[in-house]
């Protein structure tokens, strides 16, 4: 590996089941180091577990993606920033962030989500029925990974699932690194317009779904704004389906390639939850969500980071840090290590994490119970991994049974 490759971001993978090899090198040799970004700018990468947690839980690192100095991770990003526009929750800092997050958190408490379990089970069963009724090989992404979380988040929010092709296609454009800037913003604008129209419709007679309840509560406390709810709805819709979908595909593949691990959950489904946790750690599908902008000088891991400098807290590197996890490159569903940072850390830690956990748990329990003969139908070298996307995953996973 040349120094140049080691110091460019994003860094290239060589194995679909491992982070870029450069992560390990920098973590061991220079845990806080400078990297060049696609637009020629540069940022610090932070690669050790402890340091990643520090950065993500320190207010001196801002999440404001609309700030002109925020590290730009795709080309054309800096030019397209509109500092006056409505911020997504993930781009808010205090004092804006706390109240905005708390306004929807009640919908995602562990107890509240538990009530959704039977419905999620029903959705998973229906999709597996459809897979089994279809031709062989079937595509797991199309049949199960994508529809399950999409259906769940659509029902929660009150978004018609009939429109799923529209927002799934546009989401793919948004997260693909190679999408030309104009096309990316057009795709973003299209989903935004769709969500705004949907919310305007709900305003007339707010239904009993997440968006409808938000309209009622926010109106009652005098803080309702359609543009703010549009951003929130959009974020939940996009984050709610794309991430979990990729975790379903990647984990299913990992189970199929590690039959001894699969046999363990088949023998005792109570292990599925810890298996889910391990899959989250093992794949850590998003790194770029943890970009930050330093707004006050801070020392991290012995390195002084100055106000105005960009920082990437590499969650995937943190989750393979031997200081935090024994034999980190081994997939071990009994590890029971929950201090991974696959959902981030600090005030922005994923608010849908417990929904994701529940969906993954139900999918794996049901899939391997109902389709015990499931097998991958395409060679690993042929499989289309999302090497070019900001959220890692698989475009397709052909299977037979």
């Amino acid at each position, binding site marked *: 590996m040349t120094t140049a490759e080691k110091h460019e971001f994003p860094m290239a993978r060589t194995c679909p089941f491992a982070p870029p090899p450069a992560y390990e090198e920098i973590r061991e040799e220079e845990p806080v180091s400078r990297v060049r970004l696609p637009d020629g700018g540069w940022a610090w990468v932070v690669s050790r577990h402890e340091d990643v947690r520090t950065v993500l*839980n320190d207010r001196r690192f801002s999440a404001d993606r609309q700030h002109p100095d925020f590290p730009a991770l795709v080309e054309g990003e800096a030019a397209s920033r509109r500092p006056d526009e409505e911020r997504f929750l993930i781009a808010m800092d205090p004092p804006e962030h706390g109240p905005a*997050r*708390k*306004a929807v*958190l*009640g919908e*995602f*408490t*562990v*107890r*509240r989500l538990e009530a959704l379990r039977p419905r999620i089970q029903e959705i998973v069963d229906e999709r597996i029925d459809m897979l089994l009724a279809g031709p062989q090989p079937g595509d797991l992404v199309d049949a199960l990974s994508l529809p399950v979380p999409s259906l769940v988040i659509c029902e929660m929010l009150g978004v018609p699932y009939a429109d799923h092709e529209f927002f799934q296609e546009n989401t793919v454009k948004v997260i693909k690194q190679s999408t030309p800037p104009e096309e990316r913003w057009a795709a973003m604008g299209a989903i935004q317009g769709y969500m705004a129209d949907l919310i305007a419709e709900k305003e007339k007679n707010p239904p009993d779904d997440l968006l409808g309840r938000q309209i009622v509560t926010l109106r009652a406390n005098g803080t309702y704004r359609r543009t703010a709810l549009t951003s929130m709805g959009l974020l939940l819709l996009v984050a709610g389906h794309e991430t979990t979908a990729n975790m379903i595909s990647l984990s299913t593949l990992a189970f199929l390639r590690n039959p001894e691990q699969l046999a363990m959950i088949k023998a005792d489904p109570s292990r599925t939850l810890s298996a889910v946790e391990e899959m989250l750690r093992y794949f850590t599908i998003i790194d770029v969500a943890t970009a930050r902008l330093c707004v006050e000088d801070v020392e991290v891991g012995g390195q002084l980071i100055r106000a105005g400098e960009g920082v990437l807290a590499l969650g995937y590197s943190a989750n393979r840090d031997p200081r935090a996890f024994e034999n980190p490159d081994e997939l071990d569903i009994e590890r029971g290590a*929950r*201090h991974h940072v696959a*959902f*981030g*850390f*600090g*005030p*922005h*830690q*994923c*608010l849908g*994490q*417990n929904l994701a*956990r529940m969906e993954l748990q139900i999918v794996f329990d049901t899939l391997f119970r109902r389709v015990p003969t499931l097998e991958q139908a395409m060679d690993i070298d042929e499989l289309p991994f999302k090497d070019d996307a900001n959220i890692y995953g698989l475009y397709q996973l052909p299977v037979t049974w």
Partner: protein
Amino acid sequence: MKIIVDTSRCVGAGQCVLTEPALFDQSEDDGTIIVLNETPEGELVEKAREAAHVCPGQALSLEE
């Protein structure tokens, strides 16, 4: 052992409830932590430690 909570740091991620529902719950309004048992004993002590370790807001601390 006593569980100390700084609710102003709680980010409502529910990791504590997931770790041990016998010790923690979340408010239905804003997801903020509710401690059900401040002075755990026996096996629950280990659970309280794990919850403090995974809490993303570092809102939990333990007085041993």
